[in-house]
């Protein structure tokens, strides 16, 4: 008796003739083994980067914001570029876990855990930049609305920058809760099979005492559904609000209404590229090709080509509107963006973001792991340059020609950026070693409808005619 059924026309999401126990074994294996040399090397390198980043930040705090290349004209440089870039990357995780849950996309179960982890770490990295951009970072708590001794002077609730504070912190909190509530049952699985005392103790604490009663699972499902419903508009709102940091100003090149949808599409574009980059490595190193199949990679590549094309359309729309507006300042801003001193950044962005994803119209390339890996890195380079182009090439030539400058970062800015890579990969290496990188319970839930062995068993039934099928079920009992 099969309780769930999915057509055999659909590609199996779990290959390799798995049963429930095999799923547990495969996903828990890396956690229960000693880390490999590769892991130690990668982890040490990440810590090194993190250390260099910490030193760069220390230098900036000690000597002041003047150690960065930013100045009166270009007030936002690499810091805000990196902030928007990391936040954008952080969009794929919650999109996969929330929006694809609502759309009942079965393939999300193979990738959602790692993608959500990526989201959380990326948002952590993103948060660093506005905080240290404040300069006097020790006064950073001034952004919080609390009854203070400054006459109870409140922050400006009408400012897009304050909306951002609320949006990013809410996004981080909700993503973390969503992620951890899904992790609890999987930690319980590791706890119950733990062979060492320490592991039993630590995963015992982390699993919150979960035993998997029917009522608990019923609440679990209700919670994931409502959190998905809440996180769906939240994902869209976060990058909308980030785009309002620019769109609500009066700088030519920023002051456009196209920004919210354009930023959201760009965020999903870069986020999916990053998920693909990371998961191609994870599936290879942990030999999880049975759970993260070519079908998963292809599905994400389809999202990349869609959102990449939306981004490309937005670039062209921007140019059209600048010309059509007949506003001299707007037209000149775009003229300089394309042909000015930063022409190389603009054309790099155009090549990486508009041209390169078009390769994914071809099924052969969508299912080519090496090509996908390289292209997703190209996409993320392109998306970094998109933010750089939007921010710096709108600022460097302002309304007063005497203050026009050419902005380049200093080593502290570079170090800070590298440091966030260190933070990201330090967290990701720890995650990959100590956390189940694939949602064990959710995979088991989809196994009987999407596992290749179960699908194969359905083949005789699929090949029956309607009459034969009816006859079969009428006489089965």
């Amino acid at each position, binding site marked *: 008796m099969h309780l769930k059924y999915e057509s055999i026309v659909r590609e199996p999401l779990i290959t390799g003739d798995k049963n429930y126990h095999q799923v547990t074994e495969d996903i828990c294996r890396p956690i229960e083994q000693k880390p490999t040399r590769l892991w130690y090397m990668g982890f040490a390198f990440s810590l090194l980067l993190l250390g260099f980043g910490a030193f760069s930040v220390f230098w900036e705090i000690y000597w002041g914001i003047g150690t960065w290349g930013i100045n009166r004209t270009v007030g936002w440089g690499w810091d805000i570029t990196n902030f928007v870039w990391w936040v954008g990357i952080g969009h794929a995780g919650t999109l996969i876990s929330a929006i694809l849950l609502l759309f009942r996309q079965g393939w999300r179960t193979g990738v959602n855990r790692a993608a959500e982890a990526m989201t959380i770490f990326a948002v952590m990295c993103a948060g660093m930049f506005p905080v240290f951009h404040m300069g006097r970072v020790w006064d950073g708590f001034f952004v919080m609305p609390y009854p203070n001794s400054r006459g109870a002077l409140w922050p400006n609730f009408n400012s897009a920058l304050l909306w951002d504070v609320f949006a990013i912190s809410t996004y981080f909190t909700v993503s973390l809760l969503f992620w951890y509530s899904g992790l609890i049952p999987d930690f319980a699985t590791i706890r*119950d099979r733990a062979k060492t005392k320490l592991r039993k103790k630590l995963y015992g*604490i982390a699993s919150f005492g979960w035993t998997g009663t*029917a*009522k608990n*699972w*019923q*609440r679990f499902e209700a919670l994931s559904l409502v*959190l998905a419903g809440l996180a769906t*508009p939240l994902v869209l709102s976060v990058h909308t609000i980030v785009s309002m940091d620019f769109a609500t100003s009066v700088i030519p090149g920023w002051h456009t209404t196209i920004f919210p949808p354009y930023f959201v599409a760009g965020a999903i574009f870069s986020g999916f590229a990053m998920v693909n980059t990371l998961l191609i490595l994870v599936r290879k190193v942990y030999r999880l090709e049975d759970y993260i199949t070519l079908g998963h990679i292809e599905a994400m590549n389809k999202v990349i080509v869609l959102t990449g094309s939306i981004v490309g359309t937005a670039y062209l729309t921007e140019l059209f509107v600048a010309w059509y507006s007949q506003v001299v300042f707007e037209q000149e801003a775009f003229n300089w963006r394309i042909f000015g001193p930063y022409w190389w950044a603009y054309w790099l962005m155009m090549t990486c973001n508009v041209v390169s994803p078009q390769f994914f119209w071809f099924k052969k390339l969508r299912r080519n792991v090496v090509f996908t890996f390289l292209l997703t890195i190209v996409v993320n380079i392109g998306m970094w340059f998109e933010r750089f182009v939007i921010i710096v090439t709108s600022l460097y030539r302002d309304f007063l020609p005497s203050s026009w400058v050419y902005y380049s970062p200093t080593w502290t800015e570079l170090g800070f950026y590298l440091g966030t890579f260190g933070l990201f990969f330090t967290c990701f290496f720890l995650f990959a070693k100590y956390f189940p990188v694939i949602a064990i319970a959710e995979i088991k839930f989809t196994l009987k409808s999407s596992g290749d062995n179960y699908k194969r068993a359905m083949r005789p039934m699929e090949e029956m005619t309607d009459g034969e099928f009816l006859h079969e079920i009428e006489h089965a009992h």
Partner: protein
Amino acid sequence: MAIKKFAIACYDDESTLFPAVKKVRESGYKMHDVYTPFPVHGLDEVMGLKETDLHTAGFIFGLTGTATALGFMSWIFTSDWPIDFGGKPFFSLPAFIPITFELTVLFAAVGMVMTYCYLNQIMPGVKKHVFHPRQTDDLFVIAIEITDPAAELEIVDFLKTTGSVETDVQIAEEGWWYGWWDKEEEYQKQIV
């Protein structure tokens, strides 16, 4: 909380679990609970569980967030410390929407997760009895509370006829307690 005696039966597939749950309900024995390694759809209906009210809690928390954000910002900008931003009205509702939305989501999510932990009685350090170490791996476990000591053998024999792969009788704490995961026996000695 109390220590009780349970008869348990393990099943290796949800297709054998469902008829077994039905049989246990028909038999009239006191079903303590059913443990599964992943959410099994329809199990709550077969067991006769009510639909959870967690959604309602989420809605109420969300509404609290909306009211907090909107009320707080309106009070500050119209009465506590009104600031003139380029001649715009003090009560500028459209500008309050983003923060109102974010706080709605934040309150709903945090409130719901806390309610979820409270209802499920889960927290870091909480310990509950695990009837079978593979109940979070690949076994589906039904636990029946033995209310009449004389019926123990009868219940086990009954469970063996329901298609189970393993049966057992265990003495266990029915609720949760606070403690380490490897010290259950010491805990039982203390409480008895």
